[in-house]
């Protein structure tokens, strides 16, 4: 055994060279041909969404089946967890195995539409007339409509009525009121306020109502307006009115804290209402997200999932999928979905009808009417800004950086430096 190290190093080099030579054969992602019958009658189409929750999966399954029946196809529904939906879509895009009907979270639509993998909906006589402008903009890319959401949502302040009454605190309307109320409501084993400030897009989503309502803007993050919004969260944590654990909480965790009586108020969305209603002892109310100064109206982000029709070699399948999509977005189905999920119908006229029957949805419906789509300004560049925002939140809440420093760093991230 002479100088084993040197000879083995040479052999590794040889091995690596071999691998590199292998490489060209391994590329070629895009040249696989699509599957699926190109002729013959279409009897079944596939659908992909992220409704893994048992009840939700079943409700959507029923609706998809019903809509399929009206156009004469069986709809095979698959649900994957939210975090793995886009990776799965990318995989399927590269192997040309996209489903016939695809659900996307609305801020992801533009990125996917840009790839060319989605079919424009105008070819099927589907348009966004009568839809809330926010959702129409989130479903469009370069002036063309690619996706429609039957119902939308946003976040609001959800509070524990008993705790507020017991502490003699009125529902906070402004940031100052919020800080004061949270401080008064805090006692051993309980915090006044809870948000989701984790290092994901969810954290960004919860911060947006504070950023936007104060005149902050994702195109320019290093502004005093943005710093003031971030300072509000920092103050809530530093004063002990909000747990530092918000750094790790998901929206579901925030909900758990609220239900367990460990927080008196929280930022969350209407999709929590079914779970909140399960607890008969819990008396809760919904109010708009507090604004910087009295009289302002909050600007919240628009939530909701859009349905799209991926490109398919079989135009017949595409046609059927588009018909199902149109059915999902029909006024009557919107109402059903809104009823089931406590969300707001995305057609303005239907939304008004829904609020009339469900007055508790008024706060959400008002917010939704003026809610802003996350991609409306930056489009496909939004994820970078969103990453910058949650990174800044984390740095500021841990005390690593001041809000100003954190946001100037966020601006660098957003502009890709």
């Amino acid at each position, binding site marked *: 055994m002479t100088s084993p190290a040197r000879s083995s190093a040479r052999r590794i080099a040889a091995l690596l060279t071999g691998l590199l030579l292998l490489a060209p054969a391994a590329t070629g992602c895009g040249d696989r041909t699509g599957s699926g019958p190109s002729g013959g009658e279409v009897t079944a189409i596939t659908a992909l969404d992220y409704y893994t929750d048992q009840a939700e999966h079943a409700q959507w399954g029923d609706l998809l089946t019903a809509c399929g029946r009206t156009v004469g196809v069986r709809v095979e529904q698959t649900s994957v967890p939210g975090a793995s939906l886009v990776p799965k879509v990318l995989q399927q895009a590269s192997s040309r195995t996209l489903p016939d009907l695809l659900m996307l979270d609305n801020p992801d639509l533009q*990125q996917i539409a840009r790839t060319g993998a989605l079919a424009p909906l105008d070819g099927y006589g589907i348009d966004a007339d009568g839809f809330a402008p926010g959702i129409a903009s989130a479903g469009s890319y370069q002036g063309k409509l690619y996706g429609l959401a039957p119902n939308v949502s946003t976040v609001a302040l959800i509070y524990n009525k008993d705790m507020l009454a017991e502490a003699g605190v009125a529902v906070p309307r402004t940031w100052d009121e919020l800080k004061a109320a949270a401080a008064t409501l805090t006692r051993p084993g309980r915090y006044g306020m809870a948000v989701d400030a984790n290092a994901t897009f969810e954290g960004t989503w919860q911060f947006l109502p504070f950023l936007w309502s104060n005149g902050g803007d994702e195109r320019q993050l290093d502004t005093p307006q943005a710093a003031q919004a971030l300072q509000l969260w920092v103050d809530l944590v530093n004063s002990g009115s909000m747990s*530092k654990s918000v*750094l*790790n909480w998901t929206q579901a965790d925030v909900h758990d804290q609220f239900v367990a009586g*460990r927080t008196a108020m929280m930022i969350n969305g209407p999709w929590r209402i079914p779970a909140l209603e399960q607890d008969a002892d819990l008396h809760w109310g919904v109010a708009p997200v507090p604004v910087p100064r009295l009289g302002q109206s909050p600007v919240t982000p628009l939530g909701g999932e859009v349905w799209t029709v991926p490109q398919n070699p079989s135009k017949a399948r595409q046609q059927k999928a588009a018909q199902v999509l149109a059915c999902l977005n029909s006024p009557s189905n919107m109402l059903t979905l809104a009823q089931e999920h406590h969300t707001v119908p995305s057609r303005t006229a239907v939304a008004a009808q829904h609020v009339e029957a469900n007055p508790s949805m008024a706060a959400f419906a008002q917010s939704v009417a003026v809610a802003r789509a996350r991609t409306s300004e930056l489009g496909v560049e939004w994820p970078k800004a969103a990453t910058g925002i949650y990174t800044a939140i*984390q740095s500021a809440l841990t005390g690593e950086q001041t809000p100003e420093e954190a946001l100037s760093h966020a601006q660098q991230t957003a502009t890709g430096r």
Partner: protein
Amino acid sequence: MRSRPPQAADPSPVRRGDRWTRWLFVAPAATYLLLFFGYPIADNVVMSFQQYTVTSFYTGDAPFAGLRNYAAVLSSSAFPRTLLTTAVFTAGSVLGQFALGLAFALFFRRRFPLGGVLRSLLLLPWLLPLVASGTTWKWMLDPDTGVVNAVLRGLHLTSSGVPWLTGTSQALLSVVLVNTWVGVPFNTAILYGGLQDIPPNLYEAAKLDGAGPLASFRHITWPLLRPVVSVVLVLGVVYTVKVLDVILVVTGGGPAGATETIATQSYELSFRQFDFGRGAAMSNLLIVLSLVFAVLHLRADRRARTV
């Protein structure tokens, strides 16, 4: 003392058919490894030289980017910190797992009632899906409501509680702790197997020479266990460097990126920012790093053993 009989030369004369038989032993495994690793590695290397976007997945069109992905990854302002975190995480976890694993292996070598059952139960942490056990740890370590702080407060070791998941340095300690817990079963089992292979008569002889437990550990157990220790440590490092799930479940890389390692960064670049070119560059860097470590370790180990 020599730990192993010298690796003697194959005594039989080499015939042509015989040589063919020898390769037959290796061929199935080699083919499998080439298919299931050669292809992905090649794929990843190619990807790291391309500018990948979300669109590339659909069109298959990713322009050649030269070394730009590597340059971007290496020059990123977060990179030095990520590298340091990776080193601390790996060293902490591997040492923790190894020390506890060895202690358990030595303990369970003694024969006592229920020893076998207890030893098997020690593997339980590995059987539990990590999503579930990681989440449990997250609850246990929660600064406000977690059982760990409740115990510490009960024992009056701390009044306010340790910010296990919300303090930047404490969070790193927490993921090291959890990863150590996950890795102890592996270390115990392998080291226990190694201990079983040490001939008992050596200990009898040592005892006759009047050697105490410490002396017999130093002069018999440790030298004879060296090859197994070496395997455990190298595999430990190589496995730990690429750990993803523990960190993603317990801290998600936070707070403020304090538990971000090369592996989680690579995952984030690829699957959150969909910059697969940079993600691939990052993971190639990871492969090279752990390979360099393995080679250096094996060389040092060989030198230590021949001296």
